[in-house]
């Protein structure tokens, strides 16, 4: 019987083009072999951008491939232009999104972001004084939205997932799930037992002719105090950073300081794990069908259905990811805490079957 197995949705204008820019300050940054150009009215604004980007694997790019299109993010300190929205828009974290054909308008923490049509390779940010002056968290939030959108225009997709590699493996294992599903604990358990890592929660997926490649995006992990204890990460005091602003239960953990030899910049994923926390004694690992796995990825990637211009390529990238991987659900048991050293072997054995 042909049927729709399930359906779901993801989390939930037109702006005038700005006039000729009088901005002079420009800096380039590269990530995953691509370059973004930031332009602002003055250097202090770009210093704010630099501070934000330093938390991620963006590197200042003095030279870059001029044959490649460079996405420009221009940051204005003036009032944004008025825009009319045909679409009622939808709520996003800390703001609203108004799709408008090929472009999207985001109003986040009082600031306005207009992500232009893909062929324009341009995103404009009108930074409100409230955002810039009073709340570094709000500023980071605005810049994160702008950067993610700019990356999507370059077929690179920010992805909330951990990524680890078994010792000597060349293909990565993605850990995908909502906050609190246990992916950080699982990631920490595996790293503590000699596995390599890209990130605990923040990756960039890039669709290349040879397949999907995952890149480490954020430089630090965020762990609960309980994870630090359970995974014995307090043995690495130099790696433990400050508390996470806006989430006081979590602390930053600089895994590269603790395990410098285990960091991997990028890899091709071969397996996707969907962890969840169970109540049983033993961890269970069950296969997940490709269609179900793709549906789960779409739930985790709201922009794959919301950023209309980038959505077809974004959905295709997630489809390609499913095609090059096998998926499993991991229902973690108490053994993750009682016998953590048994978990790497259990995962390796199960996914090799």
């Amino acid at each position: 019987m042909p049927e729709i197995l399930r359906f779901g949705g993801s989390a939930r204008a037109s702006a005038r083009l700005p006039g000729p820019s009088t901005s002079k300050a420009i800096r380039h940054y590269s990530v995953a072999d691509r370059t973004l150009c930031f332009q602002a009215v003055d250097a202090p604004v770009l210093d704010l951008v630099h501070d934000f980007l330093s938390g991620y694997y963006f590197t200042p790019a003095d030279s870059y491939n001029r044959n490649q299109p460079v996405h420009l993010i221009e940051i204005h300190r003036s009032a944004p232009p008025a825009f009319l929205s045909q679409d009622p828009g939808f709520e996003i974290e800390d703001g609203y999104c108004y799709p408008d054909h090929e472009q999207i308008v985001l109003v986040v923490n009082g600031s306005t972001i207009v992500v232009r049509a893909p062929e324009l390779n341009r995103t404009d940010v009108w930074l409100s004084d409230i955002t810039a002056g009073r709340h570094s968290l709000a500023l980071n939030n605005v810049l994160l939205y702008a950067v993610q959108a700019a990356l999507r225009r370059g077929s690179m997709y920010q992805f909330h997932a951990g990524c680890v590699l078994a010792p000597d493996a060349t293909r990565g294992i993605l850990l995908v799930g909502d906050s609190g599903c246990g992916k950080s604990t699982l990631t920490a358990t595996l790293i503590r037992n000699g596995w390599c890592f890209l990130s605990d929660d923040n990756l960039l997926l890039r669709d290349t002719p040879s397949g999907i490649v995952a890149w480490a995006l954020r430089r630090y992990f965020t762990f609960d105090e309980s994870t630090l204890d359970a995974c014995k990460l307090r043995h690495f005091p130099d790696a433990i950073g400050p508390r996470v602003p806006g989430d006081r239960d979590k602390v930053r953990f600089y895994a590269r300081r603790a395990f410098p030899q285990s960091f991997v910049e990028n890899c091709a994923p071969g397996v996707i794990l969907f962890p969840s926390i169970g109540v049983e004694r033993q961890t269970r690992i069950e296969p997940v069908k490709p269609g179900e796995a793709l549906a789960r990825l779409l739930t985790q990637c709201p922009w794959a259905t919301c950023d209309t211009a980038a959505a077809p390529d974004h959905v295709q990238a997630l489809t390609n990811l499913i095609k090059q991987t096998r998926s499993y659900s991991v229902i973690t048991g108490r053994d993750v805490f009682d016998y953590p050293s048994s978990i790497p072997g259990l995962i390796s054995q199960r996914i090799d079957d």
Partner: protein
Amino acid sequence: MTDPAFVPLKHIVASHLEDGDGVLVDLNTRQYYQLNESAMLIWRALENGFSFDQIVKEIVTTYTVSNEQAITSAEALIRQLQRRKLVDLQDRTVTD
């Protein structure tokens, strides 16, 4: 000569997976739909501009079902697709 047929709408992105299942993403409503193998067979037939009779024939050829079962199944799915605004009845040109 024209013939009315159900056609996938342009704002639907379809993902075809190797095991035959698939996912449809509606860019207007921002909803996705996970379809099983036989539903995707019908969707693919609609993408290829098949008539209803051709779709039924495709189902009977692929699966061990009677013509009546194939008609019932195809009608039910296409009705669902239409209700969710994933397909629309449009005139298409038919060549003899």
